[in-house]
């Protein structure tokens, strides 16, 4: 082991491997989607526009997350807290817009669950729903490090938790972009 080489912190490494397994979760679902779509009885429908808005929102939240990390490293704690708050809010807006998308479909009598549902709609619900849970996980993580910013220990300015949160946050963002493109163009 060379002494010059700087290795990733083990926690960061755990996170990266964990992201790999989240990818496999969605890879499993999207391949199931493709298989199912190739079979009889598939209902084609357009994604409601509101999913475009939620995509914009989550893209924006990545920018604010990045700013938060930058401000943290510059020790601008006030601005850091501002950007974290903004990110959390955008995350929640994302969730709400997605829910609006589901309602719009139901309103168009495209059932997502229940006896009248077609697995095309159910897949959308399961895939987007699981992604929402991952976003909410990120929101909770951000809330925790936000609260921590008020505790004494931060005088050490340890950037690790914020870095971990931002890696995760960008990941769920990119994951959504993949899912959106997939649902929009493959689905």
């Amino acid at each position, binding site marked *: *082991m*060379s*002494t*010059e*080489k*700087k*290795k*990733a*912190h*083990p*926690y960061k*490494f*755990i996170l990266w*491997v*964990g992201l*790999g*397994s*989240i990818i*496999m*979760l*969605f*890879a*499993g*679902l999207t391949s*199931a989607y493709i*298989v*199912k779509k190739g*079979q*009889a*009885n*598939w209902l084609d429908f357009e994604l409601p526009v509101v999913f475009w808005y939620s995509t914009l929102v989550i893209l924006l939240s990545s920018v604010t997350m990045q700013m938060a990390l930058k401000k943290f490293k510059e020790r601008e704690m006030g601005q850091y807290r501002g950007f974290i708050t903004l990110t959390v809010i955008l995350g929640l807006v994302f969730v709400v817009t997605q829910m609006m998308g589901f309602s719009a479909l139901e309103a168009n009598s495209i059932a997502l*669950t*229940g*006896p*009248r*549902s*077609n*697995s095309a709609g*159910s*897949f959308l619900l*399961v895939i987007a729903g*699981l992604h929402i849970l991952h976003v909410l996980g990120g929101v909770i993580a951000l809330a925790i490090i936000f609260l921590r910013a008020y505790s004494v*220990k931060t005088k*050490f*300015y*340890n*950037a*690790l*938790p914020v870095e971990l949160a931002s890696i995760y946050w960008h990941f769920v963002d990119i994951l959504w972009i993949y899912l959106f493109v997939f649902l929009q163009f493959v689905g």
Partner: protein
Amino acid sequence: MSNEAAIIEDVHVKSATIHDAHGHQDHGHHEHHETFLSKYVFSMDHKMIAKQFLITGMVWAVLGGLMSVLFRLQLGYPDASFPWLESLLGKWAKGGQITPEAYYALVTTHGTVLVFFVLTAGLSGTFANFLIPLQIGARDMASPFLNMLSYWFFFIASIVMLSSMFVETGPFSGGWTAYPPLSALGDASPGSKTGMDLWIIAMSLFIVSSLLGGLNYIATILNMRTKGMSMTRLPLTIWALFFTAVLGVLSFPVLLSGMILLIFDRNFGTSFYLSDIFVNGVGALPNEGGSAILYQHLFWFLGHPEVYIILLPAMGMVSEIMSVSSRKPIFGYMAMLGSLFAIAALAFLVWAHHMFVTGLNPFLGSVFVLLTLLIAVPSAIKVFNWLTTLWRGNIRFTPGMLFAIGFVSLFISGGLTGIWLGNAALDIHLHDTYFVIAHFHIVMGVASMFGMFAGVYHWFPKMYGRFMNNTLGYIHFWVTMAGAYLIFWPMHYEGLAGMPRRYFDFSIWESFKQFGELNKFITIVSMIVFAAQILFLINFFYSIFKGRKVTTQNPWEANTLEWTTPIRPGHGNWPGEIPEVHRWAYDYGKDGKDFIQQTTPVGADESTH
């Protein structure tokens, strides 16, 4: 260590170089105020967590083994009545005979519990936790906290699974693979009601446990090795546990996705897996357009890697124990490593060999035949290397070594029948017969169990500072070895004759009546083998308290790092600095020396391997 402490430590390390990784780990020998709870229950010491996994796994092994004895009783004595069964199982054995519902519940729970709780959590959980930090030279796992969570998720999964056995309608009874529609429709059978809900919850918790464990194992192996411990100096145990973790981290999420769809079909009226179904007493279901085969794809995409998740740790431990006990370097270290890699990679490409009779496109089927048969190549390399390691070795027949040799025998026998099954043309006849049962019990069930026994006998001195009793170990080995073949070998013939698996009673079939006596024989042997496992348990628990004490640091005269720790290592493993590694783990019989530990510097005129 508390989270805060870790973070403060991090601050020291943050801007520095990797050398500080040692500083980072050095809190290992701070004095902690240990209470009973923090030492034995909510422990973050990887060695204690390993023991928790081991003992929980043992409890499940006893329960799961007992279940198999019960359903074997039905198969061996379909007409007999055992009043004590009724007192044990109540309404599940009215009149002293197991009911069909109970039979299926027992078979299903036996399969689920042995595959996942014993041979995955009990095996990887125990030895990955115990050996990774000790053999790579680390104070603990990358995240001891996640490690503790991993055990507790497993524990809760166990409780939920256990509770499913006490619900009114019984535990799930549709087979360990949980195929829909049986698993998706509460009305399909009593076991598909609450029992199945609990089964899914338990399995989901179990998946979380495996993932948390796996992430940690991978991160620890790649990031926390001591100075000098390059990847190619790692003992093969660690490599095997590494590939095991990679398989788990990549395949368990896919099973989870399949389970989530199943939950939706069960509870929210969706039709992922359901179509055109008529249930007796309920009528036609509204579900349209689902595909039960889709579940099989998702299940076996995990299911096949899973069998290697079970097997690889055993392979790794067998390689290590075999080298130590033959006093010879493992033959073909790089080939062993390459074949581990090949097996792990191929494991993702063969899942449809479980689905040859599902109407799979025959062309696609032939691709899977080819990929499946390819596994024989790395498997054969491994067998060859084990045999050549034994060849002219100075063999010490410890109980651990006997189980390691037994493993190789079982792996050969079971691997050969795998090649039969891997041919779609043969599998169409053999699928869902006792031939498959024989195949996978020999190659996976018993073989991995042997790997686990080998590991327990070999590392028991490190775990508890005492030895297990050898005589009991020998009896345990010979009875189990002979018994395993006597139980499973005849099943091949039953399967070839077409005897299907998962039938409650064969005595009413003209074609299978001929096996009545054979089934009785198998049942008797299985009871004897079960009794031998009790002997093992007695030996294990007795030896923890009363076994012969270990008096030297390195009782097996092995090279790996765990034998450089004190006889009873504390949390942090090494009281002083973590030793530096100068060579690979297999310098046995080199330059006239019986063994050279990894910590011994390379001499000036010495060649390295």
